[in-house]
């Protein structure tokens, strides 16, 4: 609101300044119609703007002046000297009040009545006495803010962008030249300066998205009233900042989407009641920042979009063959709403529940390097996600190559960079699945995807683990990884963007163009996209393939006593040597000091005789403990056939690896017995997940953990605040749980009562938040 008020003050002041000439001219020639109109527009605008703020004095004044001037315009009054004086006095007072608003000082005169009376034609006793006071005050205060044209900012930005490029070029040349400390120091200084200037200018271009959202309540109210619907608007995330230009670019698409949602999505109250919904529909508009993207979601709880109807229309319009229609996934059917010649077809509007012009919306979003996705459940509503870059300008990126060509990846989407040798790759049909520390993710070969000849052998490739904003993680195989760079990114031409793979173009240090890859676009093209059913199937396939022999990656080691034991690699943080003096027995436990931390030590009963001890640092994500051992034997991925130990303890049981018996550690017992139950851990609610379910492990676990839960394996004797079960694990293990959440793998609810579709993120989060009300706030604040 403050920002709006500032805008209002600045605007009014600007207008008053621009108007001063007109006032003088009008004073000289009161019959001048053009001047009169100009002054009328000013008071009219001020009056209109006052409506938004609680400014009764301004409103009263401008209203009175508007009334008087309207009479003159209508020819009911003539603009005599008295009226001109009165109007001028009012305008001066308005200027004064605005000044007072800005500075917070009181105005010279508190009484507006004489002014208003003067307007109505009463004898004029007052002269325009206040006029002299204004300029003085103005001189004092008006320097505090200036208004700049976006054009100028753009020019500054592009100049800075060029400076960054020149700096990069210089950096490259300096690297090739013989070293000169003095030159390098100077260069560093220049670099720092450029970075600061860039930062500053970038910030001047940022604006709260509030300025985009503030118009929505009024629009929704008016539209709903026009259409005889009841709509509750829920706006969230107005404090997210975004490039000014971006905000302008999103304004139209957002308006269109909101309009559509009310017009075609939300039903009239009767229909809603009949369908068992609340009479008032809910429209939720939210914005949040994820990495270098802004995610704007518009969700309604209306009738939804009928994908089948869209397909029928597309078939009728000759855009789809029967075969093609057959193959479409539900998400692809919905995406038809963006097809130009389809969404403009009149009759589709009525059937599909979506209005015209969605193709234009998409085109506009894509023009600024954004992505729009649609999701809909029949009779439950529609969710539109717009993802746009934070700014069109500079982003940190990683340069990589496919074949001999260099590309860039936005660093924000990169989780990790790995060597091919470090992970397991399985072929599942035509697809490849990479297993990275227990996480199974689809693997995409960049060169293959782009149709470029790879120049490196598969084994020499690098794997970049990507997590596109809003999408699922996947691994991208590239031929080489080069460097981290700050790139000045500009949107690419539409014909290039049409590939759906790029987020923009940029120039490398040496001045050659580089395409910035769009991780979501790559995922989409590779078919591992957000189209949930596809993802679903891909994972289905993976699960089925591995069902027969579900393998766990184990670290085999020799204990201090000489036995063979194994521990899941997933929980091993690192292996290191600690000096014997760092190990002490105290407060009933053996502990080891590492850096400035003290970890409980398991695996040995006393401080070792040798001068150093090799330890495994095990982690459960929150707490750590050390486990002393003698040497690493191997890392193996094997199916575990566990022969459980008779009593719970350090060892869960025995399994056969390469024909030899190996004791498997029970990490849960270890942490329960040795873990230092710190404050944090105590406050953490516990969520039990069925063991060994790759989907749970790879996809659900991070979500659950992000909500503040500690995840434990659902097995006998475990007590948890919440237990999550799938259809397969139905009735598994006698776990004591405060709450049980069942997941189903199909969007449609089957028999068997309440369950949540496993990709229904909102419902999942809702259920999990109920289990831990205290945690919810924290999770939200982080997100």
């Amino acid at each position, binding site marked *: 609101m403050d920002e709006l008020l500032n805008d209002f003050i600045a605007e009014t002041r600007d207008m008053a300044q621009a108007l001063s000439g007109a006032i003088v001219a009008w004073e000289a020639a009161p019959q001048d119609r053009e001047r009169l109109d100009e002054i009328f527009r000013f008071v009219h605008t001020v009056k209109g703007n006052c409506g938004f703020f609680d400014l009764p004095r301004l409103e009263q004044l401008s209203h009175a002046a508007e009334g008087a001037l309207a009479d003159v315009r209508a020819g009911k009054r003539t603009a005599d000297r008295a009226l001109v004086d009165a109007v001028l006095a009012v305008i001066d007072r308005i200027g004064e009040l605005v000044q007072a608003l800005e500075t917070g000082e009181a105005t010279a005169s508190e009484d507006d009545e004489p002014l208003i009376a003067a307007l109505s034609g009463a004898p004029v006793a007052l002269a325009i006495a206040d006029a002299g006071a204004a300029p003085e005050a103005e001189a004092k205060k008006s320097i505090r803010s200036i208004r700049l044209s976006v054009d100028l900012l753009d020019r500054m930005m592009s100049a800075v962008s060029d400076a960054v490029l020149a700096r990069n070029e210089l950096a490259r040349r300096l690297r090739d030249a013989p070293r000169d400390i003095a030159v390098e120091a100077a260069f560093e200084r220049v670099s720092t300066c450029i970075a600061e200037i860039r930062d500053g200018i970038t910030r001047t271009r940022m604006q709260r998205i509030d300025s985009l959202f503030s118009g929505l309540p009024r629009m929704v109210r008016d539209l709903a009233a026009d259409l005889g619907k009841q709509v509750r608007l829920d706006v969230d995330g107005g404090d997210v900042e975004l490039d000014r230009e971006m905000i302008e670019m999103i304004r139209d698409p957002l308006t269109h989407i909101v309009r559509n949602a009310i017009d075609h999505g939300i039903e009239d109250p009767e229909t809603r009641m009949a369908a068992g919904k609340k009479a008032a529909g809910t429209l939720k508009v939210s914005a949040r920042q994820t990495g270098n993207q802004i995610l704007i979601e518009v969700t309604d709880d209306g009738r939804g979009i009928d994908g089948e109807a869209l397909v029928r229309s597309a078939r009728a319009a000759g855009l789809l063959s029967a075969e093609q229609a057959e193959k479409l996934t539900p998400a692809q059917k919905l995406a038809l709403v963006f097809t130009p010649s389809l969404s403009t077809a009149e009759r589709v509007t009525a059937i599909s529940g979506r209005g015209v012009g969605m193709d234009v919306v998409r085109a506009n979003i894509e023009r600024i390097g954004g992505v729009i996705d649609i999701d809909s459940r029949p009779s439950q509503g529609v969710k539109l996600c717009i993802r746009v870059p934070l700014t069109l300008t500079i982003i940190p990126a990683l340069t990589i190559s496919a074949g001999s060509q260099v590309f860039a990846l936005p660093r924000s989407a990169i989780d990790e960079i790995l060597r091919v040798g470090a992970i397991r790759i399985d072929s599942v049909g035509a697809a490849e699945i990479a297993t990275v520390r227990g996480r199974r993710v689809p693997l995409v070969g960049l060169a293959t995807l782009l149709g470029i000849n790879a120049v490196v052998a598969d084994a020499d490739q690098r794997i970049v683990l990507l997590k596109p904003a809003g999408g699922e993680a996947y691994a991208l195989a590239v031929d080489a990884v080069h460097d981290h760079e700050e790139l000045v990114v*500009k949107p*690419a031409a539409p014909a290039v963007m049409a590939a759906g793979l790029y987020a923009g173009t940029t*120039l490398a240090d040496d001045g050659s163009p580089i395409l910035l890859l769009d991780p979501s676009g790559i995922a989409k093209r590779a078919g591992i996209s957000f189209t949930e059913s596809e993802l679903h199937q891909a994972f289905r396939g993976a699960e089925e393939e591995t069902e027969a022999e579900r393998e766990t990656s184990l670290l085999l080691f020799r204990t201090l006593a000489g036995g063979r034991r194994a521990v899941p690699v997933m929980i091993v943080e690192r292996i290191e040597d600690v000096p014997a003096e760092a190990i002490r027995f105290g407060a009933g436990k053996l502990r080891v000091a590492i850096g400035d931390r003290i970890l409980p030590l398991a695996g040995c009963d006393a401080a070792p005789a040798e001068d150093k001890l090799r330890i495994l640092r095990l982690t459960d994500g929150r707490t750590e403990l050390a486990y002393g051992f003698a040497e690493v034997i191997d890392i193996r991925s094997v199916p575990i056939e566990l022969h459980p130990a008779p009593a719970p303890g350090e060892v869960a049981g025995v399994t056969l690896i390469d024909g030899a018996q190996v004791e498997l550690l029970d990490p849960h017992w270890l942490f329960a017995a040795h873990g230092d139950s710190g404050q944090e851990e105590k406050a953490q609610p516990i969520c039990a997940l069925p063991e060994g379910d790759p989907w749970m492990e790879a996809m659900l676990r991070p979500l659950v953990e992000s909500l503040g839960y500690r995840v434990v394996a659902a097995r006998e004797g475990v007590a948890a605040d919440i237990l999550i079960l799938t259809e397969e694990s139905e009735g598994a293990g006698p776990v004591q749980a405060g709450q049980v959440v069942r997941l189903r793998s199909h969007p449609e609810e089957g028999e068997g009562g309440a369950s949540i579709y496993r990709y229904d993120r909102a419902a999942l989060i809702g259920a999990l938040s109920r289990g831990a009300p205290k945690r919810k706030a924290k999770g939200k604040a982080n997100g």
Partner: protein
Amino acid sequence: MAELLLIARLAGRRIAFPASMVEAVVELEGVTPAPCAAPHVAGLAALRSRVLTVIDGLAALGLERAGEMQARDAIVIPCDGHTYALIVEEVEDVIEADAPATRLSAPVGAGWARVATGTVEVDAEIFLLVDPYALIAGPAANAA
């Protein structure tokens, strides 16, 4: 009023572009491919600190792609916030038209019909007047 025209050769034909739509004529050296982009996009090139989208004139007509990129003439055309480099076989000259353009009166052949806006006469020779924006839009725009 007489218009300035840029005369170039494309697909073996001498054609005219309105010079007012052309920013510059450059010789492109390296073109970075843009895999999976529209077929008439030959790739990207850099002009000072700007990125040019290189349009293959032949492919834009719906004809065969020009093939291997050597150093070649390109016409720089700003359009809709982006800058394009249109590859032609040769840029000949900038000349003044003798008379305003006239509408097409005869079929001009596959590919050309979409991009030609009329004919224009210079020194008693008739050239096809081509809309560079239509070339930039590429053959796909035809279908839509």
